[in-house]
Every structure is written in structure tokens, then in C-alpha cells.
């Protein structure tokens, strides 16, 4: 039993995360970049034109991956929050701190690309559609998490943010459900995504590749921030001084 959990505990040690994280970061970066190139070149240049939406549908290769990511990152942060509250692993706090701004930017990107896509397709940038609205609320949940930390004394802020995220994640399905209910109640003539025939493989394969690419890139960004935060927090520790000394000859 002790042996099986060892890998888990090792991820609680800052030097291990910093150095092993570098390898992972490299892997994610290379894989993400390669997949994104493949997915986007395929999707933007070679996938067939949609017979209803024309070329404007191609923003899907950016919009859908970031929309997926926006929700996954929040889930990941809430999981890290739970780890922090239950096992008191300090590294989880840094994971949250590293992920929050990235998640907020990604959510914002999902909203903006959605609005840009909405104009040619629906004829308007914004409708009070259930999915759009819950995405907007998700953005506010991110911003709330970001705003809470600087308002509190630094020794308690991490766990307070974690608690907020965990409560937020319990609320997300309720919010989603209620927003859907609200929308169907009020919006008789709703603007739907135009009914498309089931996507041909030449469209959805590059889409799936783009989604995978975006996840890898998110891993890359989060690790980048995580490692920087680690270095800042542990700047007095021996391993950190050694690494900076080696790298920059200080």
C-alpha cells in the first residue's frame, strides 16, 4: 500500500514537481503544438465547406476546444481544491493559483469566439441562450475566485479559495439546470444552432485533434505558471537556488 501511494506523495514535493514538471511541460508543449498545427491546417484548409454556414463554421476549431477546456479547467481546480482541503497538500494551492487566470482567459475566449461565430450564423452577437448564459456565469465564478485571494491574509487565502471553488462546482449543475429551465420557459422562438446533418468525419476528426491539442497546451500553460510560482515561493530553498544558479550563472 505504501508503495502504491508513493508516486502520489512525490507530487507533493516542490523539487520533484519542478523538475518532473519540466519534462511533462515539454511533452505537453510539443504534443500540443504538433496536434494544433495538424488539427488547424486540416480543419481550416482541407475540411469541406459547410453547406449552410459556409466557411464561417471554421471557427469551431477554436471555439469548441476552448469551451470544453473552460469547464474542464474549473473541474480540475475544484479537484485540486478538494485535495488541498482534505489532504492539505500545499502544492494544490499553487495548482489553483496557476490555473485560475488561464481558465478565466479561456472562458473569455470561448465567449468571444462564440459571439463572433454567432453574428454570421444567428445574425446577432449575443442571445440569452442557456449555454451562453451558463458560460458567462462560469466566467464570473472564475473572476470571483481570482478576486478572493488578494482580499484575504495570505496564510488562509489558499484554503478559502479552495472552499469557494468546491462549493461553486457543486452549484454548477444546479445553475446549468436552472438556466436551461429559465430559457425554455421564456424563449418561445429560440435561436437554435442550425440543424446540421451529422458531421462528416473530415470535419470532426480535425475537431477532435484540435480539442486534444488545446488540452495539451493548457497542461503546458498550467505547468509553466505552476513552476514559476513554485520557484517564487521556494526562492529561499536550496534546490531552487541551485537551479537558478545553474541556469543563469548567478
Amino acid at each position, binding site marked *: 500500500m505504501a508503495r502504491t501511494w508513493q508516486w502520489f506523495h512525490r507530487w507533493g514535493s516542490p523539487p520533484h514537481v519542478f523538475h518532473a514538471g519540466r519534462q511533462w511541460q515539454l511533452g505537453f508543449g510539443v504534443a500540443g503544438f504538433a496536434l494544433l498545427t495538424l488539427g488547424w491546417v486540416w480543419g481550416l484548409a482541407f475540411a469541406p465547406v459547410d453547406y449552410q454556414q459556409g466557411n464561417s463554421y471554421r471557427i469551431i476549431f477554436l471555439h469548441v476546444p476552448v469551451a470544453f477546456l473552460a469547464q474542464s479547467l474549473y473541474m480540475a481546480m475544484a479537484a485540486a481544491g478538494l485535495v488541498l482541503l482534505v489532504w492539505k497538500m500545499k502544492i494544490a494551492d499553487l495548482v489553483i493559483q496557476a490555473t485560475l487566470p488561464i481558465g478565466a482567459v479561456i472562458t473569455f475566449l470561448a465567449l468571444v469566439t462564440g459571439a463572433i461565430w454567432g453574428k454570421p450564423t444567428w445574425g446577432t452577437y449575443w442571445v440569452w441562450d442557456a449555454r451562453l448564459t451558463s458560460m458567462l*456565469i462560469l466566467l464570473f465564478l472564475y473572476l470571483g475566485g481570482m*478576486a*478572493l485571494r488578494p482580499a484575504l491574509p495570505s496564510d488562509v487565502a489558499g484554503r478559502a479559495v479552495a472552499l*469557494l471553488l468546491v462549493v461553486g462546482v457543486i*452549484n454548477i449543475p444546479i*445553475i446549468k439546470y436552472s438556466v436551461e429551465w429559465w430559457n425554455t420557459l421564456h424563449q418561445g422562438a429560440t435561436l437554435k444552432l442550425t440543424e446540421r446533418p451529422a458531421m462528416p468525419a473530415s470535419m470532426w476528426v480535425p475537431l477532435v485533434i484540435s480539442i486534444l491539442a488545446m488540452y495539451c497546451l493548457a497542461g503546458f500553460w498550467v505547468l509553466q505558471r505552476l513552476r514559476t510560482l513554485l520557484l517564487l515561493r521556494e526562492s529561499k530553498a536550496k534546490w531552487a537556488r541551485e537551479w537558478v544558479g545553474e541556469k543563469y550563472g548567478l
Partner: protein
Amino acid sequence: MRDVALNWNDLGAAMRPVMFFALVAVSFPLGLGADPQLLREVAPGLVWVAALLSVLLALDGLFRDDVLDGTLEQWLLSDLPLSLTVLSRVTAQWIAHVLPVVLMGPLVALGLGLTFDTALILMATLALGTPTVMLLGSLGSALLAPARSGSGLLGLLVLPLFIPILVFGAGTTMAYAGGAEVSAQMALLGAMFVAALSLLPAAIAAALRIVTGG
């Protein structure tokens, strides 16, 4: 009980949310124009939004003094579970600050042209919904207890969590005004209240423990 009595002594502070509520409610017709048809249609939403804002006002600094003057330490030391103490504190605050809003709500709704029945339904949704909102918001208050300037932030933290209650509270009233059967929506509001009542006191207590470093 002592909290309720204390609030009674400070009647001015306790009346602040309801006066705020009344003023917000008056501002809407002034901003939207006095068209009775329009006002009747938007009344449930207006009343609910105004009620949520006044709950925010009632939540401001709910636990701040308790943290600063050491009352919270006494709660931690006492034999009562912290979640129970917290629950009674929140209940007292609700009775003193939000109950007047619940009672005032239908009056405002009548003023905006809703029928008497609809106003009663609105009051029922407020009575069922605002305790849930109060509990959710208290979590934000607890997290912000040691913060120096919490009030602006509180809205950002807890308003997104209020959304289901707003949707169901205002939605139920509008559905009733439109002639629909609303017992199912009422049951859902009640279910949310029961869920909040059973889970949130523990979460609020955990928040208070965290922010006091306990």
C-alpha cells in the same frame, strides 16, 4: 434569540435592507417608465432582483465583528457545534433584516400592478427562496470575514450562486401570473432550501475555521 434582540436594539441598521429594497423597487418604474402593462410583466423579476440586492446588504459584514472582537473564538471553544451556532446567527440575521423584505415584497408587487393572488405567490417564493440565498451568501460573508473591504467583493462571489433561486423564484411567479400550475416549482424551491439547510451550515463553519486559521 439574543441576536434578534440585539438587532431590535439597532432598529436603524436592521431596517436598512428593507428601505433599500423599497427604494430600488421605486427606482425601476422611474427608470422604465410608468407603462402598467410593462411593469406588470417585469414585476416578479424586479422584486426578486431587488430582494437579492437587499440580502447582499444584510450579509455585509455578517461575521466581521465576530472575528475581530473574538466572539468567534468563544464559539469555537463552546460545546455547541460551530455549524449550529452559525445557523442560529444566520437565522437571526434573516429574521431581523430579510423578513421585512419578504413582507414588503408583495406590497411592492401590488404597486407594480400584480394581482393579489400573484403577489401572495411571490411572497411565498420569497419566503422559501431568501433563506437559501441567505445561507449561500453567508458562506461568502464567512470567507470575507477577515477582509478589510469585503462588501464589493461579496457580490462578485455570491451573486453567481444565487442564480438558480432567482430563476425559480421569479420564474414561478411569472408562470403563476401566466396561469400555470406552480406546485412543482415551489417544491423545487423547497428542496433547494432543505439542501442548503443541511449542507451549508457545515460549509460556513468550515469557512470560518479556515479564515481564522483554526
